[in-house]
Every structure is written in C-alpha cells, then in structure tokens.
C-alpha cells in the first residue's frame, strides 16, 4: 500500500521554530525548573538547594488545608463553568434570534472579556461589600446576614459570580459564532414543519452546538483553575479563614509571599497534573457524545 507523504523540507522546521522556541521558553523550561524545585528545598536568594525527594509532595498532600483548597478549586471551576456557559448560551440564543437591539448587545457582551481579572475583583468588591455595596442592601433588611468575613459559602459565591461574569463573554462569542454557522435552511425547514422557536432550540440548535459546547467546557474548566488568581486576590484574599484559598492562589501566597519556592513548585506540579487529568477525562468520556458534522 502506498502512503502519501511529504518530502522532508527545511521549510517545515524553519517555520515551526519560532513557535517552538516560544513554547520552550515560556512553558517547557519553567515547567522543568518547577519540577526540579519540587524535589528540592530552594533558597530564595540563590545560594543552593537541598535534594529532598518527595518530601514537598508529602507535606502538601498530608495537609488537610491543602485538600480544602483542592475541594474549593473544583467547586469554583465547576460552578463558574456551568454558570458562565449557561449565561453565555442564553445570551447567544437571544442575540441569534435578532431581538431588538441585538447589534448593541453583541458588542456589549464581549467587553467584559477585555477586563483584567483584578479589575473584575475590584469592581465586585463594591458589589459584594457588606457595608457599602449593592449587597449591603440585604443587610438593611436582615442585619448581619451578608458578611464575607464570616460566612465561607458567601465568599465562595462571590468569587464564583465574579469569575463567571468574566468568562461569559468568551463563551458567548463562540456560541454565537456556532449558532450563526447553522445553515438557515435547517431552521427554516424546521419552522415549516411547525417547530416553534423553543422546539427548534432544543432539537436542532443545541445538538448542533455540541462541538462548541465541548470545546468551551474544556477551556472554561482549565481557565477557572488557572486564571482565578486576580479575582481571589482582590475580592477575598483567600479568606475568610482559607475558604477561598484556591490552588492557584495558594501557590502564589506560599511561593511569592512566603518565599517557599519549593512548596509552591510542588503545588504547581500537582495543579498541572490535575488539569491534565480533567482534560483527559473530558476527552475520553464527554467527547464521545460530541458529533462533529
């Protein structure tokens, strides 16, 4: 059997080189360094390190607070993903139906994605502030009910809402693009068969969206594990009493604030493995239900 193949050409490695160089410099090299540090105790100001084997991992994994951090990270990732994708899909369906003013909404809804995470956190600080924010209204009805410094679930809710708000825009663009790429003839045929808008959404548009849906699921989950730092830092600072100490935030506070580079490196490796495992699971089990047609 003859196999089609390209002749080797220097053009190929030449064209790949810049991209590979960037990936090597900004991903493989730091990752390798982190992997090395994870097995040593690194002195922050240089001056050498000690090999400690799996000691850093043992310490991290035997820490009950670390598992608390893993738990809240998973909750945060799932909740923001569901919330963000749900809102994005709803908005995209409305914009796709070309309701009044849809051109304005189409642009307007994309904007939040351009806002930096710390700015989002800061904005939501005003929203959620128990003394002066929008939510303080609740406290005028039921004094002391809303207090981010006291109730862990409220703090988690706050960062989930802020995180989801930021991610809605990204998912929205993709959902809208996917909806608009559905051939009009399909929709029209369904309409002629007597399917009303809601029915068309459920039986026609949503099934055709599954590839986009799957793509966004993977991206959103990965993003909420790695990109939540800014929101936590400005909104809750990991509190109250570590309730919002997400894995990525803990890496920052142990590594950069506490100068424990090795412990933070070990946590980064664990986080990387966790995100990889989750992505693998999604590809293995969810992608089966996706139809790319």
């Amino acid at each position: 059997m003859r196999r089609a193949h390209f002749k080797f050409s220097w053009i190929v490695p030449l064209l790949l080189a810049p991209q590979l160089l960037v990936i090597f410099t900004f991903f493989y090299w730091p990752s390798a360094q982190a992997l090395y540090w994870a097995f040593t105790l690194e002195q922050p100001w240089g001056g050498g390190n000690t090999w400690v084997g799996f000691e850093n991992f043992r310490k991290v994994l035997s820490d009950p607070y670390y598992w608390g951090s893993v738990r809240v990270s998973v909750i945060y990732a799932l909740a923001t993903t569901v919330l963000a994708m749900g809102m994005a899909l709803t908005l995209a369906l409305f914009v796709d139906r070309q309701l009044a003013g849809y051109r304005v909404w189409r642009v307007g809804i994309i904007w939040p994605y351009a806002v930096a995470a710390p700015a989002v956190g800061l904005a939501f600080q005003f929203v959620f502030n128990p003394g002066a924010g929008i939510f303080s209204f609740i406290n005028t009805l039921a004094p002391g009910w809303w207090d981010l410094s006291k109730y862990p679930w409220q703090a988690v809710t706050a960062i989930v809402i802020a995180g989801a708000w930021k991610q809605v825009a990204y998912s929205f663009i993709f959902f809208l693009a996917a909806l608009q790429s559905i051939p009009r003839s399909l929709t029209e045929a369904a309409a002629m068969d007597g399917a009303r808008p809601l029915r068309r959404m459920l039986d026609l548009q949503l099934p055709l969206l599954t590839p986009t849906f799957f793509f966004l699921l993977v991206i959103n989950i990965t993003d909420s594990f790695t990109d939540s730092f800014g929101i936590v830092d400005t909104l809750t600072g990991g509190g109250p009493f570590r309730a919002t100490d997400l894995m990525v935030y803990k890496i920052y506070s142990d590594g950069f604030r506490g100068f424990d580079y090795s412990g933070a490196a070990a946590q980064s490796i664990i986080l990387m493995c966790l995100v990889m495992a989750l992505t693998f699971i999604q590809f293995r089990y969810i992608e089966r239900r996706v139809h790319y047609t």
Partner: protein
Amino acid sequence: MTQKLATAALALLATAGSASAEKIKFEYWYGLTGDLGAVVAETCNRFNAAQDQYEAVCVGQDGYEKAVQNTIAAFRAGKHPTLLQSFDAGTADLMLSGEFYPVTKLMADTGVAVDWADYFPGIANYYSSKSGEFFSMPWNSSTPVYYFNKDHFSKAGITEAPVTWEGMEEAFKALKASGQACSLAYAPSSWIDLEQFSMAHNIPVASNNNGYDGLDTELLFNTTLHVQHMENIQRWMTEGYAMLRTQAAGKTARDSFVEGECSVFFSSIADHNTIHKLKPAFGWDVQIIPTYEGVERHNTVVGGASLWVLSGKTEDEYKAAAAYLAFLATKEEQQFLLENTGYIPVTKSTYEALLAEGFYAKEPFINRDIAMKSLTYTEPTELTRGIRLGGMIQIRAEWTAEVEAALAGQKTMKEALDTAVARGNEQLARFAQTYAGKSFP
C-alpha cells in the same frame, strides 16, 4: 571618508567626555505606596538636588511584599538594585543568604562616619547582628499605639486613657453604659496582638529567644498570656464591646474610628498623620498599648521598614548608596520624614533636638511621641529585642486565618492558636532544613 571618520571619532570623544562628568547612579527600590511613596520619591529628589556627585534612581514597587519579591527575581537575574526598602518579616531569608552588605561595614568601608550609639536601642537591636553590627539602615520606623475618641471617653466619664487591659475593660463597660454601641473596632493583627503584645509583657513568641539563638526554633505563643488575651478579645466581641472591622467585613477599623462609630482602635503610630488628614469630627488622642496588671511592662519594638544594601554592586554604587543613607540619617531629613508621615525619629539626638524645639508641643504632632515612650519603656531584654523567624509571613498568615476562624465560632481560641503554632512550627522546620548548618549572624 576621512571626514566622516573624524566626525565619528569626535562624537565618540564627546560622549566619553560627558559620561565622565555624569553623576554616579544607583538604584533604590522601595515598597511604600500612595502618599508615603511620594515622600520616598521626594527624599530622592532632595538628595539629588543637595549634591551633584551621585544620583539616586528610586523606583516604587507597589508594596513591601512586592518590593522584596521583585528584588529576589531581579537578584536571581543579576539586575537587582543597590538599595532595597524591606519590611522585617521579609528579611530572614536575606539575612541567611548573606547577599547583603551590612551597613556598619558599608559606612566604615566608604569612610562615612555614623554614630551608631545614637540610635535608640529598641531600633538598633532590631536591625543588628548579635555582635551589634547593623545589617540594615533604620529609616521609616513605627510602633503600635491605640487611638481613642476623647468625646466618647469624656461622655462615659473616663478621665484617663487606660494603660492596662483591666482598665480597658472597665472603659469598655463605661462606654457601653454611656450608650456607645461599639467600644473597640477590632481587626486581627499578629503584629499588634501577638508580636508587640508579647514584647510589652516580656513573654516569648518562640523558643531560642524568639529565634535569635538558632534555627531549631519552636513557637510558644499557645502557652503564654497571649492565649488569655485572645480569649478576652473574643469575649469582648461576644459581649458586644468589640466589633470585627476589617476590609472583608465591609469597613476597616480605622474608617470605623474616624467615622465615630467605634471609640478605640489599635494601629501603628504611622496612622497618626493619616487620621489628622482625615479630620474626624471629634477630639481624639493616642495611648501606649495596654498590658495586663501584675506584669512588669517592657518596651515594644520597632515596625516599619529598613534599608538594605545588596551584594554584587560596584564600589561607586556603594559610595553613592552610603551617601544617600547618611543623608537620610541627618536630623533635617528625619524631620522631613516625620513632618510628612506619622513615623518616629530613629536617633536620640534628633528626638532630643525636636523636643527642645517644641516640635511635639504643636499640632499635628502633639503626643505623637507617645510611641517613643512605648519603644523606650525599658532596655530591651533577650525577649524584647525582636523576633527572628524564618517563614514569618506565613506564620502571620496562619495566625490570622486561625484567629478569624475562632472569632467566627468555628473553633475555640485555644484550638485555633494550637493549630497556628503547629503549622507555624512546620514552616520553621522547613526553613531550618533549607538553611541547614547556618545560623543568624
């Protein structure tokens, strides 16, 4: 062609000529932000204007923590500044790394005369080695005090601001009886409630004389009077005298005080200037932090930051840095800092000169030197020199998280402090392992 070459050569000569006449530059990274950061930048301008030999290039780093983090990153890349403003909790690693130029040595090597004995012992001890050599240059210094609402106090019939915790509790009761809903705006602060509290009571925070005598140190604060004190604070909260006032709870303690909501709050003397600027609509004053009855009061220690000279720079840069440090230590420059911030003088001669001039007798400086009383209450003992612990930032964070959990009713205060100690000890053990075989100089 020859003409072109000649012009090029001339141009080269010209630049070389101007380069030799250029000032010697050195870089200084500082952590203070906002108004205080502007004061730092102003000291650089003043220095640059005062002489034409050196030029200080001062770069704000958006906070003490970031200043240290950025400097470490730059240091590892060989692009660090000559001078770094660092807070105490961030310096244990720097001390053990040895990557700094002790200022006593720097001044001696560069021929700048400094009267080291002129520094207040509470400040000198904090920033120097066991042999009395200064590691870093004291500059912006403070110590905690408490601020009280004079109007509330007189309405409640309190004539004198209490200096004992027993007296404080009486004051809380009197305030409540006078119709004051919140006596104390409380925000957990390991610096005040744990570290300075332990200094004032001459009780240990950790073994090995608070870490000075070795790296195999263990925390002890779950066995001292500190536990009872934290339990008291918790009790005052449940009894309705104290209220939690933090950013996360919606309002900081200082805002609560300035608005006249709560009558008392604890903070650094550096806030004295800020509160003046915020112009509260009532009379207010400051008092030294209370101690418990039956305990002999001792000195508190200095807070704030000091200036570190880092290794790996040229002789010229060191000369320039030394000149800047000597400039900051003059009475004139200390006074400039004092007038524009709430910080305190670091040398005895400056303080005495200011007293003689009546500096502390006029607003807004009246009573600001109560901090000096606190700082110099006794000569520092083995336990009140300061604290020298690795991983101090994490230990503080553990303490804060645990105390907050206890105050929210998740566990008892004793359990919280036990956990903070156990977790802090793990940090200390890690630190000792990282720097095996070394000890604080």
